[in-house]
């Protein structure tokens, strides 16, 4: 029978089918961070349960850590307790933990692939919805809640229902200054934030085959914003090149065997999908989100929607509400939106290619006067060092950006990096919900190139101006 890539990985990991049509699925890798794990470890302790396989687990602190002045430790007492709790739990259970001053530390979804922890064909979970990122390496990866974190720690398995298969096929190539971030924002705008609910999305087509692994991570990352727990891309030469030689990748003796298996990781040519969408990459222009849901996105040379032109009552009301929250007017030009802050970072866009992209726009330019703060937060210690070796940090600093230590930072503002009420930010992150980057803060989701451009101009602008 013809199978999709998702079918193949699912079948390979299915231990049993349960009476309620869910399945017992084996989990190969488990990534753990400080925010969604303390209650899980606590639960195990109370029930006196052991970990099933400690070597399948890697832990890191990223959500709740300062991005400057690491030497003096974490000042905020409550944050410190949370990070210390993770350190303690890892010690007690003999789990690999990447400390704040370790070059391997970074955002959990950046370091997984980077260190070779994520590999093709694996099942990988983490108590974080952007676990979908890892699907770029042909792995089945999805976010789970804390109860499931506890369940996987204790049993190495999860009971979960199989999702439907969705294929998003993207033909042709992206134009200059149009990035994978613009592509995924465009797709979410078209299919909606619940368009992928209940599905695993496989991204395919010429555009995806030509895309770097980092670009694929950006699109798989935001599958969750399209409602899908997992995004996935087939294994190919690019995947192989990316994997080989990384810290935790399969070593020489067994690599050949692994590659043989990895080469089967693609959908069969006659596999059928429950839902399919087709897009043409060459028609896509840079995107800017204007509202409080990622689907509220427009082209850079577009206008803010006018609710009076919308018939659907729910839609109309949510647009009115978003316009009010974002302090924007119907039909306003995107290029007229003035900004206060710029954030380049997050598990969507904090890898080396993202930083190169932004730096190439910034080179030799200064940020505009109205920009109160422009931050670059590399995704990991390795990304940071690499960028410094390439001199990107200098470009950022000379233009007026602050160059920080790795972490989630202003993507969710759990640490000190956040928006003050009513501040407006161009952000390379993935969520523009009310209050996401700080209470009453206003977020516009964009690519790293657009964030850099907006920093220079002080407002959004197309690249041709």
């Amino acid at each position, binding site marked *: 029978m013809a199978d999709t890539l998702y079918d193949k990985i699912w079948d390979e990991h299915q*231990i*049993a089918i349960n009476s*309620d*049509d869910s399945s*017992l699925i*084996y989990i*190969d890798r488990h990534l753990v961070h400080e*925010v*969604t794990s*303390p*209650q899980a470890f606590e639960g195990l302790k109370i*029930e006196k349960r052991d970990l099933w396989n400690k070597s*399948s687990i890697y832990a890191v602190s990223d*959500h709740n850590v300062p991005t400057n002045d690491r030497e003096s430790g974490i000042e*905020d007492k*409550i*944050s410190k*307790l*949370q990070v210390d*709790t993770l350190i303690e739990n890892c010690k007690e259970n003999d789990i690999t933990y990447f400390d704040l001053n370790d070059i391997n530390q970074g955002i959990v979804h950046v370091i997984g692939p980077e260190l070779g*922890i994520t*590999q093709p*064909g694996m099942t990988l979970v983490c*108590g*974080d*919805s952007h676990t979908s990122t890892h699907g770029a390496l042909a792995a089945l990866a999805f*976010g789970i*809640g*804390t*109860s*499931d974190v506890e*369940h996987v720690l204790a*049993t*190495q*398995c999860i*009971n979960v229902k199989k*999702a439907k298969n969705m294929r998003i096929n993207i033909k042709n190539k992206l134009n200059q200054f149009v990035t994978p971030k613009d592509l995924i924002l465009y797709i979410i705008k078209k299919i909606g*934030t*619940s368009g992928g*609910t209940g599905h695993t999305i496989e991204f395919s087509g010429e555009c995806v085959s030509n895309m770097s692994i980092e670009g694929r991570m950006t699109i798989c990352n935001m599958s969750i914003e399209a*409602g899908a*727990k997992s995004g996935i891309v087939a294994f190919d030469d690019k995947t192989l090149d990316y994997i080989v030689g990384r*810290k*935790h990748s399969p*070593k020489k003796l*067994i*690599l050949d*065997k*692994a590659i043989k*298996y990895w080469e089967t990781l693609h959908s069969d040519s006659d596999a059928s999908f429950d839902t399919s969408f087709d897009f043409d990459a060459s028609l896509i222009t840079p995107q800017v989100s204007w509202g409080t849901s990622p689907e509220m996105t427009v082209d850079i040379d577009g206008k803010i929607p006018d609710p009076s032109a919308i018939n659907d009552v*729910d839609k109309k009301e*949510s647009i009115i509400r978003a316009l009010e929250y974002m302090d924007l007017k119907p039909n306003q030009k995107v290029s007229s939106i003035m900004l206060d802050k710029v954030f380049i970072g997050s598990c969507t866009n904090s890898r080396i290619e993202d930083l190169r992209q932004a730096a190439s726009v910034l080179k030799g330019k200064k940020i505009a006067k109205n920009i109160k703060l422009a931050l670059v937060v590399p995704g990991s210690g390795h990304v940071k060092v690499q960028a410094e070796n390439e001199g990107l940090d200098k470009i950022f600093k000379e233009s007026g950006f602050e160059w920080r230590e790795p972490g989630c930072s202003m993507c*969710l*503002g*759990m640490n000190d990096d956040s928006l003050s009420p009513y501040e407006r930010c161009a952000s390379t992150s993935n*969520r523009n*919900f*009310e*209050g*996401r980057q700080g209470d009453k803060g206003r977020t516009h989701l964009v690519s790293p190139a657009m964030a850099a451009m907006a920093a220079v101009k002080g407002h959004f602008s197309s690249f041709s101006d």
Partner: protein
Amino acid sequence: MKEKVISGQVIPINQSNIDTDAIIPKQYLKSINKTGFGKFLFDSLRYKQTGTLDNYKDREPNKDFVLNQDPYDKGTIIIANDNFGCGSSREHAVWALKDFGIQSIISTSFADIFSRNSVKNGILLITVDKNVLDDMFSRMSKSKVFIISIDVNKQNIVGPDNLNVDFNLNDADKERIIYGYDDIALTLKRREKIIEYENKMKKKKPWLFDNEE
């Protein structure tokens, strides 16, 4: 099977895409406990000032928000529009709902991870058609006091004005809501099966189990 009926005041939240950031804002995720989140439910909509874990008491409630209005402040069932619980996987959102006293949520659709987290914590999610939801909203606009009874076994909702709605619920979720299983204990009963699978894979894909540097 044990009988279970959930009854109480309904809280209307006529909005789509209620995200978990709204249900529980990030500053409260710093807690390492599972309880005590109820007072922070919908925090940024409920209060005029921002709170933190160690400073939340003296704040002015936002009277326009339903949870600050009688009789909704004592509600136990939420009714809301499409895609409830989207966004982050934070189970803290479900802990906050539960701690506040919410036992069931009615909507046209729920986000995937949120659904799993809810069932695991004994919150019953009921998916209904758009016309049923609209009908309930319109009935509620006529009377603030709106108490319904949800019969979990019979999969049926009854309420004022002859409201009578059937809903779907699979047997496994039904049992989970009624009995509240210890999932880990159930899975550990299949230990042998898991070990057998693991041994097979150690031969087939040895690189997965040999991940030391």
